[in-house]
């Protein structure tokens, strides 16, 4: 039982031990942890545990969280809660929900707020296949879809509003089917008859064959086995799905064409997230890995190994994504203890707006308004996270938070992405996708392990020969390629989105990185007029394509074409060693920046917000973690022991028998 996590024992200063009796034997549950930007601490203000009726650890519904403004929605066992959630501004009592629903004989599995509606429109997917639409504030209406279960009898696995739409939503099921619903259409009482509409490798799309239009509008049959999660790209152009068959599939949503695929190393893929600029997709699954796929290059560019079990959630953290521009200012706000003094001064995390959640796209259904897809940014390094600008002016800048305290490069590109993952191992991992990984030439076999945050050397004895890539060297190497000198500007939002508060829409235009640099995609989209914003915005930003190494674009394109023409290609044995599923030593294997056990039960949710991030675990606990610079400003004194001490005590008793 020597379960020493490699990265789990680094310089955590003053970590609270919840299990003194098992110290040194079991890994302790952390209440705080240090990254180079400072100390993250568990927020004590919340009454973070809900009283879950009938909860047993064996209950197999993951607790998920949805946010809309100051509202949080989460499901726990057979109940659904909607609460006011002020983050760290005010303690939240999750035991006093605005709305609480208990279900009988079934349970809620997933939910999604429509942040574009004037009212709160909350969709809830249920375990028996039905979908509820409700307004938990006004409690005005509650519609039920698939009530007779004639459309699909299986569990709803994920539900998402179509970005920018007031009335379209997607529902995925464990049957491996995805349906497009329109809010105001009836569902019908008999099994729908479908007609093949479009077909491609590993998927088929059907329309509903009826006299009058009714739900579902479309049925997508994707892969084999359950569709576990779906995600629209922040630019809203792409839809990505992960399935139990181990495939990530990325579609152009409007043209319904398959843009790219990834096969897990093995086992099902469970979760998915897009980078804030829609350039990368990260997936996690039953291979205990996180896998990073580049939309532009159509290949897996890295994997991350750190979890000890399946990865339940991956999420980009747009607020600590490191960017660089001409602004020269040292930022001492993060002068905390750092795990990695060597790299500490290089990357200063910064804010983007909350854009890694898909439903924030701001076009309207009438499509008369072309949203400006610019990035929000505050040029100052004061960590004043700025947001919610509602101007309608159009700036040419699409890049944002750009700060580098140690280097004045004349550019403004994201040099490093931060994402997090939580898993069944009760651990949180933070990962960094750095420039050297992003820009690595294709086909180069990598056998070394990149240690982004060199922890205790002794913990990785066999890696002693692995190269720690000096990021400063890498940076200078790439700086010469950069021409953009854009300053930072606030994001512009169409005025109608002004009321959706923190979840405002700020997007990078992915087309800059895709259509205008690779022919593959643009050819597939040119046939439709749906992506009008593509061209309008892409033109002004062409210079950004220089930021990318396009070394193997041609070969990738060929392989993609080949793939789409041949019939086989679902065989994971054949796919191993291709860009869809590279061998382990063919792409960089990342180690987590940090890897902490933060709960007693498996973790099921992870949402990054401006001042904090939220995790949830199977037992129904919701945890708020305060970001480093936010902590100092808070009124409430941090308590070393969070409000889970009752539980900790419980565990103390029992874990003593564990050796």
């Amino acid at each position, binding site marked *: 039982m020597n379960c020493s996590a490699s990265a789990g024992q680094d310089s955590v200063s003053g970590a609270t031990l919840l299990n003194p009796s098992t110290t040194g034997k079991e890994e302790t549950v952390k209440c705080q942890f240090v990254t180079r930007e400072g100390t993250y601490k568990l927020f004590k203000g919340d009454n973070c545990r809900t009283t879950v009726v009938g909860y047993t650890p064996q209950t197999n519904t993951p607790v998920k969280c949805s946010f809309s403004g100051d509202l949080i929605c989460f499901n726990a066992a057979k109940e659904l809660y909607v609460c006011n959630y002020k983050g760290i501004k005010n303690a939240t009592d999750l035991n006093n929900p605005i709305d609480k629903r208990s279900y009988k004989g079934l349970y809620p599995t997933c939910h999604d707020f429509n942040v574009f509606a004037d009212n709160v429109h909350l969709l809830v997917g249920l375990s028996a296949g039905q979908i509820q639409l409700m307004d938990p504030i006004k409690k005005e209406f509650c519609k039920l879809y698939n009530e007779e279960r004639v459309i699909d009898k299986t569990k709803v696995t994920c539900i998402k509003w179509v970005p920018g739409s007031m009335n379209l939503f997607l529902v995925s099921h464990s049957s491996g089917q995805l349906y497009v619903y329109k809010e105001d259409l009836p569902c019908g009482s008999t099994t729908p008859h479908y007609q093949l509409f479009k077909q491609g490798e590993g998927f088929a799309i059907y329309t509903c064959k009826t006299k009058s239009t009714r739900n579902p509008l479309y049925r997508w049959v994707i892969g084999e086995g359950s569709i576990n999660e779906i995600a629209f790209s922040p630019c809203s152009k792409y839809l990505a799905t992960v399935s139990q068959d181990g495939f990530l599939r990325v579609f152009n949503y409007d043209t319904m064409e398959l843009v790219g695929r990834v096969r897990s190393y*093995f086992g099902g893929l469970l979760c998915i997230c897009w980078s804030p600029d829609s350039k990368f997709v990260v997936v996690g699954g039953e291979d205990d890995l996180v896998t990073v796929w580049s939309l532009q290059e159509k290949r897996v560019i890295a994997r991350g190994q750190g979890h000890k079990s399946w990865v339940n959630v991956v999420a980009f953290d747009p607020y600590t994504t490191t960017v660089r521009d001409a602004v020269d200012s040292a930022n001492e706000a993060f002068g905390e203890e750092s795990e990695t003094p060597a790299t500490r001064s290089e990357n200063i995390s910064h804010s983007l707006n909350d854009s890694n959640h898909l439903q924030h796209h701001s076009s309207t259904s009438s499509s008369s308004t072309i949203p400006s897809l610019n990035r929000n940014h505050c040029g100052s390094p004061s960590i004043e996270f700025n947001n919610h600008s509602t101007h309608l002016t159009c700036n040419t800048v699409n890049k944002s938070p750009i700060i580098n305290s140690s280097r004045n490069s004349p550019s403004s590109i994201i040099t490093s992405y931060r994402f997090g993952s939580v898993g069944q191992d009760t651990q949180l991992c933070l990962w960094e996708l750095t420039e050297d990984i992003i820009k690595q030439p294709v086909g180069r076999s990598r056998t070394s392990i990149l240690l982004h945050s060199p922890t205790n050397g002794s913990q990785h004895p066999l890696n002693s020969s692995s190269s720690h890539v000096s990021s400063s060297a890498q940076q200078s190497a790439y700086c010469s390629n950069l021409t953009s000198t854009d300053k930072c500007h606030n994001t512009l939002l169409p005025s109608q989105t002004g009321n959706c508060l923190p979840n405002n829409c700020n997007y990078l235009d992915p087309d800059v990185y895709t259509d205008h640099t690779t022919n593959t995609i643009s050819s597939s989209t040119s046939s439709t007029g749906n992506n009008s914003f593509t061209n309008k915005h892409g033109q002004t930003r062409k210079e950004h394509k220089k930021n990318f190494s396009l070394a193997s674009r041609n070969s990738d394109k060929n392989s993609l074409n080949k793939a789409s023409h041949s019939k086989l290609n679902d065989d994971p044995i054949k796919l191993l060693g291709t860009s869809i599923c590279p061998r382990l030593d063919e792409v960089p294997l990342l180690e987590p920046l940090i890897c902490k056990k933060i709960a007693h039960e498996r973790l099921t949710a992870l949402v990054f917000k401006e001042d904090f991030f939220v995790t949830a675990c199977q037992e129904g606990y919701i945890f708020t973690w305060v970001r480093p610079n936010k902590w100092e400003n808070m009124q409430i004194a941090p308590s070393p022991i969070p409000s889970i001490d009752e539980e900790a005590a419980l565990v103390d008793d029992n874990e003593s028998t564990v050796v």
Partner: protein
Amino acid sequence: MGGNISQLEKELNCESLTVNEHYFGLVNFGNSCYCNSVLQALYFCRPFRQKVLEYKAKNKRVSQNKETLLTCLADLYHHIATQKKKTGTVAPKKFIARLKKENVVFDNFLQQDAHEFFNYLLNTIADLLAAEKSGNQTGPTDNNGKNNSDSNRTWIQDIFQGTLTNETRCLNCESLSSKDEDFLDLSVEIQQNTSITHCLRVFSNTETLSSEHKYYCENCCSKQEAQKRMRIKKLPMILALHLKRFKYMESQNRHTKISYRVVFPLELRLFNKASNKGGDDKLYDLVAVVIHCGPGPNRGHYITIVKSFGFWLLFDDEMVEKMDVSSIEDFYGITSDTQKSSESCYILLYQARESMLSS
């Protein structure tokens, strides 16, 4: 019972009309579920069953062979495989009787360890086959000196045997020495809230030999600090993983059950290969799981789930039920440490996948 069986048959009939497969429960002869569960799991390891049935066919021609555990097993599998009905029950009476006769450990009505039985069964069959082989080829007494591993290789080794390599690197002279070791199954230490993948990976973690554990380096001719790790050199066709759920507790002077939740994917690759040269990078599919239910090694029950033609079945002695694949998560184990009793995976059988379009 009859109702249940016809129900299963009904379900099977609408799912897979053409499949000629038999799903027969095994009668329990007083705590013989450890045996039943392993026999069922192995029956649904197609390569194993095939070899056993081939043995039976061969034996028929020779006839008048003396009864061994293998002949009893062959008779039992043959009996199941040649049933007219698709479902029903069979009494493995002869096999159990033989087992008790051959090994005093099993000659009682106590609950036995399924993994111990699994091990015993495979080794006994291998020995019997090897003996027959040497008996056929050379004289009965003339096998000394020729007793290398090749001549003793039987289809048990072909199916289950893999090779571990024990690599030791001397930290003084950097010389690497490695020693190979064959295995028929891997016994894996488990941790709470981990995956079997992780447990297997830990198994290959590097360990530094220092102070009193220093390693004698033949190159340096002295004791030196060294790094040691175990890696898998050759992957077996069927990977049998045994989860070490029964731990001896000195304080209690007995074995207790560790019910840790250990998830296992339906598809598996190993991370701890000695080299990642292509070709031998096997992708495994889960085909059977032996599950221990209950509080401890001597109290409890064994059941088995198997995958057959794309669907999953649960075998609980004479009961056979179809089950949904999503129910597998009930057998991962439990996260609560208060509760010792659990229905948790104990032996996992993964079968290497053939390429769908192997050319």
